[in-house]
């Protein structure tokens, strides 16, 4: 038994990691829906979900149950194999892409082994390429779903999405090239470290400044890749009654849903890694007291949660919320007390907070922007975005050349 453990340790650890990541991602997805609904509601000056649990916190749970127990009819005349394959493909690819993302630079030592945050070790030679490869395949889920449903609206949705994704993938890839030139590597870890080459500069060392153009191109293209507003034509409910997944219900639909949100997360990760210094703190390295920021956030937040919980008459409000609050508070306090743990926490903390910001932007956009018209979409992608990104590449390379010439750097 023990021998088994020792021989296949790597395998076991990876499996555990996968399970963990799956759990986290799914939960996050669930609460992302809640978050989205809340924010959009407030943008539209509504309350949003607030019946199920305090602040509607249990709403995602309810939704999940609904998905599970809903009837799952298969429309007549569908291509069975492809019909079932499509959602699986979509979800699998989304999760794979997130599996390629490193959440922290250095490993934890457990059971005498280095265990990295993230499934793959952070210094994967072709990290970014691998990511693009996986996202490139993402289109199949949508397209096949649209085709296999043997129905008109989904087909249109599928066509739209495949065209749209191909078009914007070019811009996406092109806009990253600038960053790659600066970093001189495909390796995500190296890319992040390249942004810390002047530690005292803090957030001014990030790629977003030299690559501001590239960043915009990338972000817009990424939004288009994930079929989110204002690029959500494949699933334009007002025109195509939910587009490619019209014929899908219950859990297959949920898969598409999860896939979409997961890819949102992935894109946010990519944005923060490529342009916003990944897990780097925005403050200069010399400001050590910035390390206490997590606690500084956790402790007040926990206290507020406790106070908020006492406003409810229910058992839920009485017990659980205060409990959570106290946990958070103590966590913050512990971080203050255990500096090395705190130090280890920093990287994931910053990364996650950046991701959070981007997710908020996603939602924000959904709440505010109208949808593109199809021809506008194509024109925008081909005639504006692509040329801009190419121009960005050219400018960057010239800048680097000039730098080499005059400062002899690199």
């Amino acid at each position, binding site marked *: 038994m023990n021998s088994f453990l020792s021989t296949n340790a790597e395998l076991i650890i990876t499996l555990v990691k996968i399970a963990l990541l799956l759990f986290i991602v799914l939960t996050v997805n669930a609460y992302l829906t809640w978050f989205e609904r809340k924010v959009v509601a407030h943008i539209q000056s509504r309350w949003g979900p607030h019946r199920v649990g305090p602040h509607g916190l249990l709403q995602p749970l309810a939704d999940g149950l609904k998905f599970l127990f809903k009837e799952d009819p298969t429309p007549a005349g569908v*291509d069975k*194999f*492809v019909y079932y*394959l499509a959602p699986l493909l979509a979800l699998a690819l989304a999760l794979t892409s997130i599996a390629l993302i490193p959440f922290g630079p250095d490993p934890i030592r457990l059971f005498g082994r280095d265990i990295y945050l993230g499934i793959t070790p952070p210094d994967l*030679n*072709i990290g970014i*390429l*691998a990511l*693009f*490869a996986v996202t*490139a*395949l993402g*289109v*199949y889920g949508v*397209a*096949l779903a*649209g*085709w296999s449903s043997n129905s008109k609206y989904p*087909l249109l949705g*599928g*066509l739209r999405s*495949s*065209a749209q*994704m*191909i078009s914007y*993938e070019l811009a996406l*890839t092109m806009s990253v090239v600038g960053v790659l030139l600066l970093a001189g590597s*495909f390796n995500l870890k190296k890319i992040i470290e390249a942004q810390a080459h002047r530690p005292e500069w803090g957030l001014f060392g990030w790629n977003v400044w030299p690559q501001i153009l590239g960043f915009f191109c990338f972000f817009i293209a990424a939004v288009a890749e994930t079929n989110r507003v204002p690029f959500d034509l494949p699933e334009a409910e007002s025109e195509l009654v939910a587009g490619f997944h019209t014929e899908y219900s219950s859990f297959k639909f949920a898969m598409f849903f999860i896939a979409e949100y997961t890819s949102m997360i992935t894109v946010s990760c990519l944005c923060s890694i490529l342009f916003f210094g990944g897990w780097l703190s925005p403050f200069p390295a010399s400001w050590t007291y910035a390390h206490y920021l997590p606690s500084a956030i956790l402790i007040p937040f926990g206290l507020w949660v406790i106070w908020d919980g006492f406003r409810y008459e229910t058992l839920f409000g009485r017990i659980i919320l205060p409990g959570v609050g106290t946990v958070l508070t103590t966590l913050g306090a512990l971080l203050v007390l255990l500096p090395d743990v705190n130090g280890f926490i920093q990287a994931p903390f910053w990364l996650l907070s950046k991701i959070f910001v981007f997710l908020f932007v996603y939602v924000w956009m959904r709440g505010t922007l109208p949808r593109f018209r199809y021809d506008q979409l194509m024109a925008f992608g081909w005639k504006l975005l692509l040329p801009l990104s190419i121009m960005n590449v050219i400018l960057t390379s010239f800048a680097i050349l000039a730098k080499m010439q005059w400062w002899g750097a690199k």
Partner: protein
Amino acid sequence: MTAQLAVFFVLAALAVIGAVSLILQKHPIHSALSLIVVMIALAGLYLLLGAEFVAAVQIIVYGGAIMVLFVFVIMLLNAGIEEHTSISKMAGAPGLLLVVALAGFVAATIARSTESIQATSQTGELASTLGISNMLFKDFVYPFELTSFLILVAVLGATVLAQREKS
């Protein structure tokens, strides 16, 4: 039977199965999917061969662009099950014979050349991406530029072809 060998055989089997199913499938979209399987398997083989960059490009371009185009066109034309006509007499038994002969010749020729390769075979880890970029932009720069022209021409040609004639 090392791990590498095992992986190779798995991927090879995948590729062959994909190719065979490309032939056996009646519906073009299934054929397309089988081809995608083949390509991904090949990408895996490239990784096994230490050609990471090529593997990535294989998936991005072939899997992510070309095959998407195929699927897109199939959907656009709403291609149905392939009807089984056999008007061409050449493409019958003689065709089969010829194919077998060709495969045999290819095999024989390559086999003749491979033992010499086995002789000169020296498996060094190649700094893949960097080396490729060096070659591409130093030794092969003119062909590279030519390919860019090729792409341009192809784009123009496709545009001209696909636009409906104004009438």
